[in-house]
């Protein structure tokens, strides 16, 4: 009914954190005089992956809700809001399905981050392994 709103809310928070982190990393890069060889994926880049997944999922799911007539063009924009019984059902769906969606996307992202770091590490160790 409105499960995509949970992911959309998480996407807003993640985007804000990502922008702040990006600024912080830029400042650190400007202040450091020596050239730093990138050995790790910056957190801002990883957060960007999460925000793309959350925004993408939320937008495409919102489209599905429009398709089914659950999101409407007039206030309060959610058809379930017009009836208290439907509103309760909608909130229950947001608390169960919506939270699970956001959690699973975040879990997949955590797995992706670990995998990406491992792949990068493997790539850095490869020349040393080949030389030995």
């Amino acid at each position, binding site marked *: 009914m409105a499960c995509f709103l949970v992911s959309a809310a998480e996407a807003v928070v993640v985007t804000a954190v990502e922008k702040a982190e990006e600024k912080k990393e830029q400042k650190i890069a400007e202040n450091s005089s020596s050239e730093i060889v990138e050995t790790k994926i910056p957190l801002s880049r990883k957060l960007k992956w999460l925000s*793309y*997944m959350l*925004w*993408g999922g939320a937008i*495409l799911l919102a489209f*599905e809700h429009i398709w089914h007539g659950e999101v409407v063009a007039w206030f309060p924009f959610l058809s379930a809001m017009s009836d208290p019984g439907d509103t309760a059902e909608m909130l229950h769906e947001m608390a169960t399905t919506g939270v*699970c969606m956001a959690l699973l996307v975040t879990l997949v992202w955590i797995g992706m981050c670990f995998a990406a770091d491992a792949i990068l590490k493997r790539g850095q160790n490869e020349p040393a392994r080949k030389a030995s």
Partner: protein
Amino acid sequence: MTLLLTVFAAVFVTVKWYNRKDDSMKLGILCFLYWGASIMWFVDAVFEYAELGAAYFTPALEDMINDSFLGLSVIALGLIIWLVRLLITDPKGSVRAALQKH
């Protein structure tokens, strides 16, 4: 059907991204878009399965057709979002070059 079509789109775009020559097409964004939606629809499917049981796998023909149309529309919307972003960010400078042409 919506989940299935979105997963197929996600897999196809991911394979295309893996075989890319350079990053100018920004296919990674499209991958994240489709995978994010696929994960969310997967959760939706699990909840629906818990509610309907085996009946979840035998939908009515009319529902299947409607879901297929929805799936294709979702894929089209994802492509439009990606294309608009690509044209605005213009990583290859093609749009700028075309606009500067006399």
